[in-house]
């Protein structure tokens, strides 16, 4: 992770607006800004965790980057294994096909993300098949990858319904890694799994990162998973990144009131802990009609007049630590002691 090395992924001002249509003639009456001006970098081998509550746009952001959906604007530059760079936003779908071997995605629900009518060996081999690789070679590489992620090779001809949730997620991981990508979007890869299985899958992802020199954009809403996995953390609220910092800094000294509230909600296995969680009032605002100024101000207990009118920019408050809050210099926010 040297400073001079190019980031694997560099996202600049990425936007995804969904048009809101009304009536029979589908008149566009507004836009849901699901992802609004998001920028960040991911270094080689780094795990960037993206956290936020439901509807904050985490998943949309992940899908835009791998172009499962087409972003509205911005840039996302991927540095490929051969050293060349491509802008994922501007490349048309057809041109993306060869680039897809350098990035992939792991889905949240291992039950709906596997074709129910395809044997597992074909599911894992599909990315290679799409690259036009010969069947014999696909076969060999599928077996190799299946062994690597801990699948029983005798069961590869079975259909997904023969597998448990944890095994299915291993199949998804094998499929995502078979083209030897540099970068993976992991969209809540463990939130659909039993807690006992979660640790196995997380360790598998860590292990794969070390062996294959992967970078992850790790989308989750589980802060204990973040603590286990992440190098850096980006906090998202209504389509925008509100705080971005290395994990230990963010946990110890959050600089945004929303992050403080999130952290205070983490349960700690400490019977002596007497801290009350900061309870946010009201609902997260709709991204179709976000509040003026800072999106968070209606729920923020520190809100001032300026927060109601001027939208704060994401600015660096300490080296490597950025926050989008007018008051981040003044406030002394409560973090949690990291282990």
């Amino acid at each position, binding site marked *: 992770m040297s400073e001079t090395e190019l980031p694997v992924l560099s996202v600049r001002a990425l936007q995804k607006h969904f048009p809101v249509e009304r009536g029979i003639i589908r008149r566009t009456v507004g836009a849901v800004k699901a992802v609004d001006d998001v920028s960040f970098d991911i270094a080689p081998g780094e795990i960037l965790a993206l956290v936020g509550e439901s509807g904050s746009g985490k998943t949309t952001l992940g899908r835009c980057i791998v172009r499962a959906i087409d972003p509205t604007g911005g840039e996302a530059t991927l540095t490929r294994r051969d050293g060349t760079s491509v802008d994922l936003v501007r490349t048309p779908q057809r041109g993306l096909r*060869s680039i897809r071997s350098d990035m992939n995605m792991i889905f949240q629900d291992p039950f709906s993300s596997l074709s129910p009518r395809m044997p597992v060996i074909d599911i894992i081999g599909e990315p290679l098949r799409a690259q036009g690789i010969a069947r014999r070679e696909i076969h060999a590489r599928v077996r190799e990858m299946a062994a690597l992620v801990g699948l029983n090779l005798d069961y590869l001809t079975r259909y997904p319904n023969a597998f448990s949730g944890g095994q299915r997620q291993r199949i998804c991981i094998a499929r995502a890694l078979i083209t030897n990508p540099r970068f993976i979007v992991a969209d809540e890869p463990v939130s659909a799994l039993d807690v006992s299985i979660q640790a196995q899958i997380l360790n598998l992802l860590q292990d794969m990162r070390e062996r294959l020199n992967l970078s992850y954009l790790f989308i989750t809403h589980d802060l204990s998973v973040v603590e286990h996995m992440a190098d850096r953390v980006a906090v998202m609220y209504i389509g925008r990144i509100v705080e971005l910092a290395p994990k230990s800094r963010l946990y110890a000294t959050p600089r945004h009131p929303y992050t403080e509230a999130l952290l205070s909600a983490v349960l700690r296995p400490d019977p002596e802990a007497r801290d009350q969680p900061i309870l946010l009032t009201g609902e997260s605002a709709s991204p179709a009609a976000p509040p003026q100024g800072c999106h968070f101000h209606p729920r923020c207990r520190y809100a001032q007049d300026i927060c109601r009118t001027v939208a704060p920019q994401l600015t660096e408050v300490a080296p490597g630590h950025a926050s989008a809050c007018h008051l981040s210099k003044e406030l002394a926010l409560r973090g949690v002691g990291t282990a």
Partner: protein
Amino acid sequence: MTALATSMAPAGMLSQRQLIWRRFCRHRVALASLWFIGILYVVVLLAEIFAPYDPFARNPTGLLSPPTAVHIFDDDWQLHRPFVYGRKVELDRQTFQRHFVEDRSQRYPIRFMIRGAPYDLLGIVPLDIHAFGVDAPGAIFIAGTDSLGRDLFSRMLFGARTSLFVGLLGLGIGFVLGLIFGGLSGYYGGAIDTLIQRFTEFLQSLPTLPLWMALAALVPKEWTPTQVYFGISSVLAIIGWTGLARVVRGKLLSLREEDYVMAAKVNGVSEWAIITRHLLPGFASYLIVHLTLAVPQMILGEVSLSFLGLGLRPPAVSLGTLLLDAQNIQTVTLSPWLLYPGAFVILIVVAFNFLGDGLRDAVDPYRQS
């Protein structure tokens, strides 16, 4: 792709197809229906062989003859191979109606693979072999004769040929139309979807029978029976595709949103491969079932049109035109065997429904058996 999986399947493991067949075999009625339908199609294709008589051959001495009884014992309780007695006509002096009675002095054993009226099998092979029959001057009418003295059983076989294949042809046309319109609607969505859906609703909201009648009226009178036959199939298909189009659209719309389709897209799989490898297998089984259940509707459609005199017209033979003879109360009271074609239609429709039912249960991989 599947071949790859199959070649790897170790001995003793069942492929998906074998599993489906196993589950299907467990549904006894469906299995019986499959046999019935299979045999029926063979029989009607080779109707010339299986019918003892030419369907148009008149029998001037046997008008409205009741079904011939088959015996194995004679009057002295002597066992014989199956035989029929001769017939003679008696006049009832009180009602002045003619009755056929058995002439017990003559016995005609039923013979198999007997030589009879010559014909061209499938229009090509000249033959004169019939699966069964009796030597002249005896006659065997196992379903009786109609008002012109034609053998109803032979006519039912030829009529079933027409009706069963009108069903298939109409279904084929409707299937293609339904797949195309439903596919366009579901895959592209948006304005195309709205347009096609409103059109479908329009077609569905028209009452079926008047629409059939109007379309059937478009079939010119001077057309040959073959042309009429294609015309009627198309009429049935033009109305029949809407249901399938709806199903295809709905399935595509829901499957398109599945995570595995997005996964395939992220993995660089082409649109065509996504449709054929991921979307279609997801509801191919559903299509098969839908088709099986739609065949009897097509058959019933042809039968009702012909029964009303709007579809095929005599001399063309179909189950519907045969039932034309059973339209008045006199027939039903005096010659009830003219209703046999109706019973035959019921049998065919029920068999198709059971087959579809069994298939639907068998192809569902998530059903525990």
